[in-house]
């Protein structure tokens, strides 16, 4: 069985995003970039499925040349081969989903595992869009994946608890945080990853129009909250709560 895992290069989750003074976006110059955390979980899950009949893991990224680093990280974790679709311009989820749909046509994976959301634009769309374009089942926000030869049973994190669905293959899964704990790549594996194959493509190779549908007019910082007062003890806190009408 073959698994396709799309991975995105984003601002590292430990870095505090800074809005550019000219209001055009978030400053990405000279800041640490990493694999989207949910995509690390997706790569990890694919690797764990290697005991369950998965024989090949293909990772894909759509983005600037530097996304090679992100793909190399996935290869070092244990993926087998990578495809980079180069676009120096940002591609929206709809465009990404269309490119992925073409790659799925070529590669014919049994399972596609994506992150539930990229933590830069927080869109939470690509997996669902891809499943829609392919006309296959989707299990979003996965916290448990059980694979058999012709179906996959997925437990999903939903409001109020969890839900389980069974999908016929091929199918699309998006990962939630508690699906697994991603591994760190070992040094030998990082070295080995350097010689794993990485194909370079462009959106034109797939005949996909990725021109954006949305225009960002401006990006601003949200209203800042300022630190309030510190109270000395519980009595003072109780008095405050009473003054607010929260406690009698």
């Amino acid at each position, binding site marked *: 069985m073959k698994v396709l895992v799309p991975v995105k290069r984003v601002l590292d989750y430990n870095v505090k995003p800074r809005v550019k003074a000219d209001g055009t*976006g978030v400053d990405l110059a000279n800041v640490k970039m990493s694999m989207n955390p949910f995509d690390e979980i997706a790569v990890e899950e694919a690797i764990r499925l290697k005991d369950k009949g998965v024989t090949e893991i293909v990772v894909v990224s759509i983005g600037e040349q530097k996304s090679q680093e992100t793909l190399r990280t996935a290869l070092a974790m244990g993926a087998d081969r990578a495809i980079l679709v180069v676009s120096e311009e940002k591609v929206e989820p709809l465009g990404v989903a269309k490119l992925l749909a073409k790659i799925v046509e070529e590669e014919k994976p049994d399972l596609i595992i994506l992150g539930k959301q990229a933590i830069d634009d927080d869109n939470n769309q690509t997996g669902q*869009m891809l499943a829609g374009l392919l006309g296959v089942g989707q299990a979003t926000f996965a916290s448990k994946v059980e694979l058999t030869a012709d179906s996959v049973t997925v437990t999903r994190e939903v409001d109020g608890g969890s839900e389980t669905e069974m999908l016929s293959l091929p199918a699309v899964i998006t990962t939630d945080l508690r699906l697994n704990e991603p591994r760190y790549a070992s040094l030998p594996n990082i070295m080995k990853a350097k010689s794993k194959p990485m194909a370079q493509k462009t959106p034109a190779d797939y005949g996909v129009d990725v021109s954006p549908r949305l225009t960002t*007019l401006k990006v601003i910082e*949200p209203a800042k909250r300022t630190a309030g007062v510190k109270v000395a003890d519980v009595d003072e806190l109780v008095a405050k709560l009473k003054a*607010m009408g929260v406690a009698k």
Partner: protein
Amino acid sequence: MKTLVWVEHDGASVKDATLAVVTAASQLGEVHLLVAGRGVDGVAAEAAKIAGVGKVHVADDAAYAHALAENVAPLIVDLMGHHDAVLFPATSNGKNIAPRVAALLDVMQISDILSVESDDTFTRPIYAGNAIATVQTKDAKKVITVRGTAFEKAATTGGSGTIEKVAATGDKGVSTYVGSEIAKSERPELTSAKIIVSGGRALQNSENFHTIIEPLADKLGAGVGASRAAVDAGYVPNDYQVGQTGKIVAPEVYIAIGISGAIQHLAGMKDSKTIIAINKDEDAPIFQVADIGLVGDLFKIVPELTGKL
């Protein structure tokens, strides 16, 4: 503009999250609703009473019983023949279905809107709410998810929508609902609670959550939330998680206990009206956003506080 709102319900009644979406939709134009499910006459009748609602489309079919996106999306696509925009609450169901609809309509979805600026322009949070983008769409049909805390809830009475049956589009046969485990709780739901008491990693175990956080919540009639660290460590179920990847809440009062205030947590609660933080580390980032802070050991402070209320 004619808008369609996908109604979130539990088979018996309309979920609160729908009401904020109705308000957002009414800022765009005429509001129609879609109630899809199995045996949903009662839900449809309730939905028709929501203030400002014109028409309620009802699709009653087993294929919609569990809101499977594979089955619901084609139904919505059909209805989009005579609607200009479709809006969903940014709940787990809304987020699951909406992008599939967008892809089938070949439009780019606008996720999690905070405001309607005009017919085609909206604001939305990016980078865990550390930036707010104003985006304009070129698509003729609009697919939107709405952040519930950003819009007033429409009144549940006063409306007199007409109910219209729509033909079901069938089961696509690619997915099957197996089951669910939904936690039953006497406490208010997080997304509509007026007061929330949240606990973090500092609670150490689920036992402490029961004996320290819950009595305070009970005293205040509050909902109970948690940081991801507390959820991951198994102190509480996953649906307690507040934050970028959990629930977005904006209660009157949010009490963060033993939570450091990571940006991913702040993303879910920093629009609360009043934030109260209890933490033993006076430099914890949570104090930078807290209106009222108390530095000290939660194991001492919280029981004392509960006792004095």
